[in-house]
Protein backbone atom coordinates (compact mmCIF):
# COMPACT_ATOMS: atom_id res chain seq x y z
CA UNK A 1 0.00 0.00 0.00
CA UNK A 2 1.58 3.26 -1.14
CA UNK A 3 1.37 6.49 0.82
CA UNK A 4 -1.60 8.72 0.11
CA UNK A 5 -1.03 11.42 -2.50
CA UNK A 6 -2.13 15.01 -1.94
CA UNK A 7 -4.81 16.53 -4.19
CA UNK A 8 -2.43 19.40 -4.95
CA UNK A 9 1.31 19.75 -4.54
CA UNK A 10 0.97 22.53 -1.95
CA UNK A 11 -0.80 20.20 0.49
CA UNK A 12 1.74 18.44 2.74
CA UNK A 13 0.41 15.25 4.33
CA UNK A 14 3.46 14.15 6.29
CA UNK A 15 3.41 15.05 9.99
CA UNK A 16 0.67 17.52 10.78
CA UNK A 17 -1.04 18.25 7.45
CA UNK A 18 -0.51 21.81 6.29
CA UNK A 19 -0.29 23.97 3.18
CA UNK A 20 2.83 25.52 1.75
CA UNK A 21 3.19 28.59 -0.45
CA UNK A 22 5.80 30.04 -2.78
CA UNK A 23 6.86 33.29 -1.12
CA UNK A 24 8.56 35.96 -3.18
CA UNK A 25 12.01 36.58 -1.74
CA UNK A 26 11.82 40.24 -2.73
CA UNK A 27 8.38 41.40 -1.62
CA UNK A 28 6.87 38.52 0.36
CA UNK A 29 3.85 37.96 -1.89
CA UNK A 30 2.61 34.38 -1.62
CA UNK A 31 1.34 32.04 -4.33
CA UNK A 32 0.15 28.44 -4.46
CA UNK A 33 0.70 27.82 -8.17
CA UNK A 34 3.91 27.19 -10.10
CA UNK A 35 5.33 30.65 -10.77
CA UNK A 36 7.21 32.29 -13.61
CA UNK A 37 7.69 35.50 -11.67
CA UNK A 38 6.08 37.57 -8.94
CA UNK A 39 2.97 39.35 -10.19
CA UNK A 40 3.46 42.06 -7.57
CA UNK A 41 7.12 42.99 -8.06
CA UNK A 42 8.51 40.98 -11.04
CA UNK A 43 11.14 39.18 -8.94
CA UNK A 44 11.65 35.57 -9.95
CA UNK A 45 12.95 33.85 -6.86
CA UNK A 46 10.73 32.20 -4.30
CA UNK A 47 11.12 30.09 -1.22
CA UNK A 48 8.67 27.66 0.28
CA UNK A 49 6.89 28.69 3.47
CA UNK A 50 4.36 26.94 5.69
CA UNK A 51 0.92 28.54 5.78
CA UNK A 52 -0.79 28.72 9.20
CA UNK A 53 -3.38 25.97 9.60
CA UNK A 54 -5.86 28.26 11.33
CA UNK A 55 -7.61 31.25 9.89
CA UNK A 56 -10.77 33.32 9.50
CA UNK A 57 -13.40 32.96 6.80
CA UNK A 58 -13.17 36.05 4.63
CA UNK A 59 -15.76 35.22 1.95
CA UNK A 60 -17.94 32.26 1.05
CA UNK A 61 -20.71 31.09 -1.21
CA UNK A 62 -23.06 28.16 -0.81
CA UNK A 63 -22.93 26.33 -4.13
CA UNK A 64 -26.01 24.45 -5.33
CA UNK A 65 -24.86 23.73 -8.91
CA UNK A 66 -21.51 22.07 -9.50
CA UNK A 67 -19.68 19.63 -11.74
CA UNK A 68 -20.97 16.03 -11.82
CA UNK A 69 -19.54 14.09 -8.88
CA UNK A 70 -19.30 17.12 -6.60
CA UNK A 71 -21.83 16.77 -3.75
CA UNK A 72 -24.05 19.84 -3.34
CA UNK A 73 -24.75 22.00 -1.55
CA UNK A 74 -21.23 22.73 -0.44
CA UNK A 75 -19.52 25.82 0.93
CA UNK A 76 -16.77 27.39 -1.17
CA UNK A 77 -14.75 30.01 0.59
CA UNK A 78 -11.66 32.15 0.96
CA UNK A 79 -9.84 31.79 4.27
CA UNK A 80 -7.43 34.37 5.68
CA UNK A 81 -4.64 32.30 7.26
CA UNK A 82 -2.44 34.83 9.01
CA UNK A 83 -2.53 37.16 6.02
CA UNK A 84 -2.40 34.49 3.31
CA UNK A 85 -5.60 34.11 1.29
CA UNK A 86 -6.46 30.43 0.85
CA UNK A 87 -9.18 29.17 -1.46
CA UNK A 88 -10.88 26.14 0.04
CA UNK A 89 -14.17 24.46 0.83
CA UNK A 90 -15.58 24.94 4.31
CA UNK A 91 -16.33 21.41 5.53
CA UNK A 92 -17.90 19.67 8.52
CA UNK A 93 -20.48 22.42 8.76
CA UNK A 94 -24.11 22.67 7.73
CA UNK A 95 -24.17 24.39 4.31
CA UNK A 96 -26.58 27.19 5.16
CA UNK A 97 -26.20 30.89 6.03
CA UNK A 98 -27.16 30.23 9.66
CA UNK A 99 -24.07 28.09 10.23
CA UNK A 100 -21.51 29.80 7.98
CA UNK A 101 -20.50 33.37 8.69
CA UNK A 102 -17.78 35.70 7.52
CA UNK A 103 -15.19 36.01 10.28
CA UNK A 104 -15.74 32.53 11.74
CA UNK A 105 -12.60 30.76 12.99
CA UNK A 106 -11.53 27.78 10.93
CA UNK A 107 -8.78 25.17 10.94
CA UNK A 108 -7.34 22.99 8.20
CA UNK A 109 -8.50 19.40 7.92
CA UNK A 110 -8.01 16.65 5.35
CA UNK A 111 -10.69 15.12 3.14
CA UNK A 112 -10.34 11.61 1.63
CA UNK A 113 -11.02 11.57 -2.13
CA UNK A 114 -10.97 7.84 -2.83
CA UNK A 115 -8.48 5.43 -4.37
CA UNK A 116 -7.24 5.07 -7.93
CA UNK A 117 -6.80 1.90 -10.03
CA UNK A 118 -3.49 1.16 -8.27
CA UNK A 119 -5.10 1.38 -4.83
CA UNK A 120 -3.47 4.69 -3.97
CA UNK A 121 -5.56 7.07 -1.92
CA UNK A 122 -5.78 10.77 -2.74
CA UNK A 123 -6.35 13.26 0.07
CA UNK A 124 -7.68 16.78 -0.30
CA UNK A 125 -8.19 19.52 2.26
CA UNK A 126 -10.85 21.80 3.62
CA UNK A 127 -11.36 24.12 6.56
CA UNK A 128 -13.66 23.21 9.46
CA UNK A 129 -15.01 25.31 12.33
CA UNK A 130 -12.40 25.62 15.08
CA UNK A 131 -13.70 25.10 18.61
Amino acid at each position, binding site marked *: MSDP*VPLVDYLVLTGQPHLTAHECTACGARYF*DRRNACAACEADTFHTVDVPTEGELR*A*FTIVSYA*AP*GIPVPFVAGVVDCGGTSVRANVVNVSAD*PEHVRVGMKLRLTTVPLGTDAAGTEAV*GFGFEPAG
Partner: protein
Amino acid sequence: MAENVWILGIHMTKFGKHPDLDTVDLGAQAARGALSDAGLHMRDVGVLAAGNLMRAAASFGQQLQKQIGQTGIPVFNVANACATGATALRVAIMAIRAGETDVGLAVGVEKLSGAGLLAGGTAQQQGDTWSPQGRFGAVAPIDGRIGTETMPGVFAQIGMEYGHRYGGADFELFARISEKNHAHSTLNPLASYQKRFSLEQIMNEVRSWSPTRTRGRCARPTVTVAPRRSWSASRSCAPSRSSSSAGPSRSAPRC
Protein backbone atom coordinates in the same frame (compact mmCIF):
# COMPACT_ATOMS: atom_id res chain seq x y z
CA MET B 1 -4.15 62.61 -34.11
CA ALA B 2 -7.91 62.81 -34.05
CA GLU B 3 -8.90 64.53 -30.83
CA ASN B 4 -12.43 63.21 -30.79
CA VAL B 5 -13.93 60.06 -32.23
CA TRP B 6 -17.65 60.00 -32.84
CA ILE B 7 -20.06 57.09 -32.78
CA LEU B 8 -21.88 57.48 -36.11
CA GLY B 9 -24.18 54.50 -35.93
CA ILE B 10 -25.13 51.67 -33.63
CA HIS B 11 -27.16 48.52 -33.77
CA MET B 12 -27.98 45.72 -31.38
CA THR B 13 -29.74 42.40 -31.88
CA LYS B 14 -32.35 41.12 -29.47
CA PHE B 15 -31.04 38.95 -26.66
CA GLY B 16 -32.27 35.39 -27.09
CA LYS B 17 -31.28 31.81 -27.79
CA HIS B 18 -31.48 32.22 -31.58
CA PRO B 19 -31.08 28.48 -32.32
CA ASP B 20 -31.21 29.12 -36.07
CA LEU B 21 -28.60 31.91 -36.10
CA ASP B 22 -24.86 31.43 -35.67
CA THR B 23 -22.32 33.99 -34.46
CA VAL B 24 -21.74 35.24 -38.00
CA ASP B 25 -25.49 35.71 -38.57
CA LEU B 26 -25.82 37.73 -35.37
CA GLY B 27 -22.65 39.69 -36.03
CA ALA B 28 -23.71 40.42 -39.62
CA GLN B 29 -27.07 41.75 -38.45
CA ALA B 30 -25.40 44.02 -35.91
CA ALA B 31 -22.66 45.22 -38.27
CA ARG B 32 -24.97 45.91 -41.20
CA GLY B 33 -27.45 47.58 -38.87
CA ALA B 34 -24.77 49.91 -37.50
CA LEU B 35 -23.52 50.75 -41.01
CA SER B 36 -27.07 51.46 -42.12
CA ASP B 37 -27.65 53.60 -39.04
CA ALA B 38 -24.51 55.58 -39.92
CA GLY B 39 -25.34 55.80 -43.63
CA LEU B 40 -22.07 54.01 -44.45
CA HIS B 41 -20.97 50.88 -46.30
CA MET B 42 -18.19 48.39 -45.73
CA ARG B 43 -16.15 50.09 -48.45
CA ASP B 44 -16.09 53.22 -46.26
CA VAL B 45 -14.62 51.32 -43.32
CA GLY B 46 -10.86 51.20 -42.82
CA VAL B 47 -10.58 48.86 -39.86
CA LEU B 48 -12.72 46.07 -38.43
CA ALA B 49 -12.50 45.09 -34.77
CA ALA B 50 -14.31 41.86 -34.00
CA GLY B 51 -15.00 40.65 -30.47
CA ASN B 52 -15.98 37.09 -29.64
CA LEU B 53 -14.92 35.12 -26.58
CA MET B 54 -16.45 31.65 -26.67
CA ARG B 55 -15.00 30.78 -30.09
CA ALA B 56 -11.98 33.04 -29.87
CA ALA B 57 -9.83 30.89 -32.18
CA ALA B 58 -12.42 30.85 -34.97
CA SER B 59 -11.42 34.16 -36.61
CA PHE B 60 -14.93 35.55 -36.35
CA GLY B 61 -13.83 38.83 -37.97
CA GLN B 62 -12.67 37.14 -41.17
CA GLN B 63 -15.84 35.02 -41.28
CA LEU B 64 -17.87 38.20 -40.93
CA GLN B 65 -15.95 39.92 -43.72
CA LYS B 66 -16.65 36.99 -46.02
CA GLN B 67 -20.37 37.51 -45.45
CA ILE B 68 -20.77 41.29 -45.43
CA GLY B 69 -17.81 42.66 -47.37
CA GLN B 70 -14.24 41.56 -48.05
CA THR B 71 -12.77 44.95 -48.82
CA GLY B 72 -9.14 44.25 -47.97
CA ILE B 73 -9.07 46.13 -44.68
CA PRO B 74 -7.24 44.91 -41.58
CA VAL B 75 -9.29 42.97 -39.05
CA PHE B 76 -8.49 42.51 -35.38
CA ASN B 77 -10.11 39.63 -33.52
CA VAL B 78 -10.19 40.34 -29.79
CA ALA B 79 -11.19 38.26 -26.76
CA ASN B 80 -11.23 39.86 -23.33
CA ALA B 81 -13.88 38.16 -21.17
CA CYS B 82 -16.72 40.53 -20.19
CA ALA B 83 -14.83 43.41 -21.83
CA THR B 84 -14.58 41.75 -25.26
CA GLY B 85 -17.04 44.06 -27.03
CA ALA B 86 -15.63 47.14 -25.31
CA THR B 87 -12.14 46.09 -26.34
CA ALA B 88 -13.27 45.80 -29.97
CA LEU B 89 -14.63 49.35 -29.77
CA ARG B 90 -11.34 50.52 -28.29
CA VAL B 91 -9.34 48.89 -31.09
CA ALA B 92 -11.41 50.75 -33.69
CA ILE B 93 -11.05 54.04 -31.81
CA MET B 94 -7.29 53.60 -31.41
CA ALA B 95 -6.86 52.92 -35.13
CA ILE B 96 -8.69 56.18 -35.88
CA ARG B 97 -6.71 58.11 -33.25
CA ALA B 98 -3.49 56.73 -34.69
CA GLY B 99 -4.46 58.14 -38.07
CA GLU B 100 -4.63 54.78 -39.81
CA THR B 101 -8.18 55.28 -40.98
CA ASP B 102 -11.11 57.67 -40.75
CA VAL B 103 -13.84 55.12 -40.16
CA GLY B 104 -13.82 51.96 -38.08
CA LEU B 105 -16.34 49.25 -37.33
CA ALA B 106 -16.47 47.42 -34.02
CA VAL B 107 -18.60 44.31 -33.59
CA GLY B 108 -19.14 42.09 -30.58
CA VAL B 109 -21.06 38.84 -30.63
CA GLU B 110 -21.56 35.93 -28.26
CA LYS B 111 -23.66 32.79 -28.34
CA LEU B 112 -24.00 31.71 -24.74
CA SER B 113 -26.83 29.21 -25.02
CA GLY B 114 -25.48 25.97 -23.59
CA ALA B 115 -22.30 27.65 -22.34
CA GLY B 116 -23.09 26.58 -18.80
CA LEU B 117 -21.56 28.58 -15.97
CA LEU B 118 -18.79 30.06 -18.19
CA ALA B 119 -16.12 28.38 -16.05
CA GLY B 120 -16.17 25.34 -13.80
CA GLY B 121 -19.28 23.32 -13.10
CA THR B 122 -18.56 20.73 -15.80
CA ALA B 123 -17.16 17.21 -15.72
CA GLN B 124 -13.43 17.04 -16.44
CA GLN B 125 -11.20 14.22 -17.61
CA GLN B 126 -9.56 12.23 -14.89
CA GLY B 127 -7.08 9.40 -15.40
CA ASP B 128 -7.15 5.89 -13.90
CA THR B 129 -4.33 6.75 -11.55
CA TRP B 130 -3.61 9.90 -9.60
CA SER B 131 -0.94 11.87 -11.43
CA PRO B 132 -0.09 15.50 -10.68
CA GLN B 133 -0.89 17.94 -13.47
CA GLY B 134 -0.96 21.67 -14.07
CA ARG B 135 0.27 24.61 -12.04
CA PHE B 136 -1.09 23.20 -8.77
CA GLY B 137 0.20 19.68 -9.35
CA ALA B 138 -3.41 18.51 -8.95
CA VAL B 139 -4.25 14.79 -9.20
CA ALA B 140 -7.96 15.51 -9.76
CA PRO B 141 -10.08 18.45 -10.93
CA ILE B 142 -10.06 21.08 -8.19
CA ASP B 143 -13.29 22.89 -9.18
CA GLY B 144 -15.70 22.02 -6.38
CA ARG B 145 -12.97 20.38 -4.28
CA ILE B 146 -11.00 23.56 -3.61
CA GLY B 147 -13.68 26.20 -3.72
CA THR B 148 -15.63 26.92 -6.88
CA GLU B 149 -14.50 28.12 -10.29
CA THR B 150 -18.02 28.85 -11.53
CA MET B 151 -18.44 32.51 -12.41
CA PRO B 152 -21.59 33.02 -10.28
CA GLY B 153 -19.77 31.49 -7.31
CA VAL B 154 -16.61 33.52 -7.82
CA PHE B 155 -18.54 36.78 -8.08
CA ALA B 156 -20.68 35.89 -5.06
CA GLN B 157 -17.48 35.66 -3.03
CA ILE B 158 -16.08 38.89 -4.47
CA GLY B 159 -19.32 40.65 -3.54
CA MET B 160 -19.18 39.27 -0.02
CA GLU B 161 -15.54 40.20 0.45
CA TYR B 162 -16.29 43.71 -0.81
CA GLY B 163 -19.01 44.03 1.80
CA HIS B 164 -16.75 42.64 4.50
CA ARG B 165 -13.94 45.03 3.61
CA TYR B 166 -15.88 48.23 3.01
CA GLY B 167 -19.18 47.64 4.82
CA GLY B 168 -22.67 48.59 3.69
CA ALA B 169 -22.87 45.97 0.93
CA ASP B 170 -25.34 43.45 2.29
CA PHE B 171 -27.62 41.19 0.29
CA GLU B 172 -30.30 43.85 0.09
CA LEU B 173 -27.89 46.19 -1.71
CA PHE B 174 -27.18 43.54 -4.36
CA ALA B 175 -30.91 42.89 -4.65
CA ARG B 176 -31.50 46.62 -5.16
CA ILE B 177 -28.96 46.63 -8.00
CA SER B 178 -30.84 43.73 -9.58
CA GLU B 179 -34.14 45.59 -9.09
CA LYS B 180 -32.66 48.65 -10.82
CA ASN B 181 -31.25 46.61 -13.72
CA HIS B 182 -34.56 44.84 -14.29
CA ALA B 183 -36.29 48.22 -14.26
CA HIS B 184 -33.89 49.38 -16.96
CA SER B 185 -34.61 46.26 -19.03
CA THR B 186 -38.23 47.35 -19.41
CA LEU B 187 -36.93 50.37 -21.35
CA ASN B 188 -35.04 48.23 -23.89
CA PRO B 189 -37.16 46.13 -26.26
CA LEU B 190 -34.02 44.15 -27.11
CA ALA B 191 -33.33 43.08 -23.51
CA SER B 192 -33.52 39.44 -22.53
CA TYR B 193 -36.17 39.74 -19.85
CA GLN B 194 -38.27 42.87 -20.13
CA LYS B 195 -39.94 42.39 -16.82
CA ARG B 196 -39.83 44.41 -13.68
CA PHE B 197 -39.29 42.62 -10.37
CA SER B 198 -39.87 44.04 -6.92
CA LEU B 199 -37.16 44.04 -4.30
CA GLU B 200 -39.23 41.57 -2.31
CA GLN B 201 -39.52 39.17 -5.25
CA ILE B 202 -35.77 39.28 -5.84
CA MET B 203 -34.89 38.81 -2.19
CA ASN B 204 -37.19 35.81 -1.93
CA GLU B 205 -35.75 34.09 -5.00
CA VAL B 206 -33.98 30.77 -4.40
CA ARG B 207 -30.26 31.50 -4.08
CA SER B 208 -28.02 29.14 -5.98
CA TRP B 209 -24.83 30.92 -5.14
CA SER B 210 -25.55 32.47 -1.80
CA PRO B 211 -25.52 35.27 -0.91
CA THR B 212 -25.54 37.30 -4.10
CA ARG B 213 -26.64 35.13 -6.98
CA THR B 214 -30.00 33.58 -7.68
CA ARG B 215 -31.08 31.11 -10.28
CA GLY B 216 -32.72 33.51 -12.70
CA ARG B 217 -31.42 36.87 -11.72
CA CYS B 218 -28.00 38.29 -11.29
CA ALA B 219 -27.60 40.50 -8.27
CA ARG B 220 -24.14 41.62 -9.10
CA PRO B 221 -22.69 45.09 -9.03
CA THR B 222 -21.72 45.20 -12.69
CA VAL B 223 -23.49 45.24 -16.00
CA THR B 224 -23.87 41.61 -16.94
CA VAL B 225 -24.74 39.50 -19.94
CA ALA B 226 -27.53 37.15 -19.02
CA PRO B 227 -26.33 33.56 -19.27
CA ARG B 228 -27.76 31.30 -21.98
CA ARG B 229 -28.56 34.18 -24.27
CA SER B 230 -26.89 35.38 -27.39
CA TRP B 231 -26.23 38.95 -28.27
CA SER B 232 -24.37 41.07 -30.69
CA ALA B 233 -23.80 44.75 -30.90
CA SER B 234 -21.94 46.93 -33.29
CA ARG B 235 -20.78 50.50 -33.59
CA SER B 236 -19.26 52.30 -36.46
CA CYS B 237 -17.13 55.23 -35.52
CA ALA B 238 -15.15 58.02 -37.11
CA PRO B 239 -13.07 61.00 -36.03
CA SER B 240 -14.79 64.34 -35.62
CA ARG B 241 -14.20 66.88 -38.33
CA SER B 242 -15.67 69.81 -36.48
CA SER B 243 -17.29 70.45 -33.17
CA SER B 244 -20.63 70.75 -34.91
CA SER B 245 -20.52 67.20 -36.26
CA ALA B 246 -23.29 64.92 -35.27
CA GLY B 247 -22.22 63.70 -31.88
CA PRO B 248 -23.05 60.53 -30.05
CA SER B 249 -26.40 61.79 -28.88
CA ARG B 250 -27.68 58.28 -28.35
CA SER B 251 -26.43 56.17 -25.54
CA ALA B 252 -24.48 53.12 -26.59
CA PRO B 253 -26.14 49.77 -26.03
CA ARG B 254 -25.20 48.11 -22.77
CA CYS B 255 -23.67 44.73 -23.17
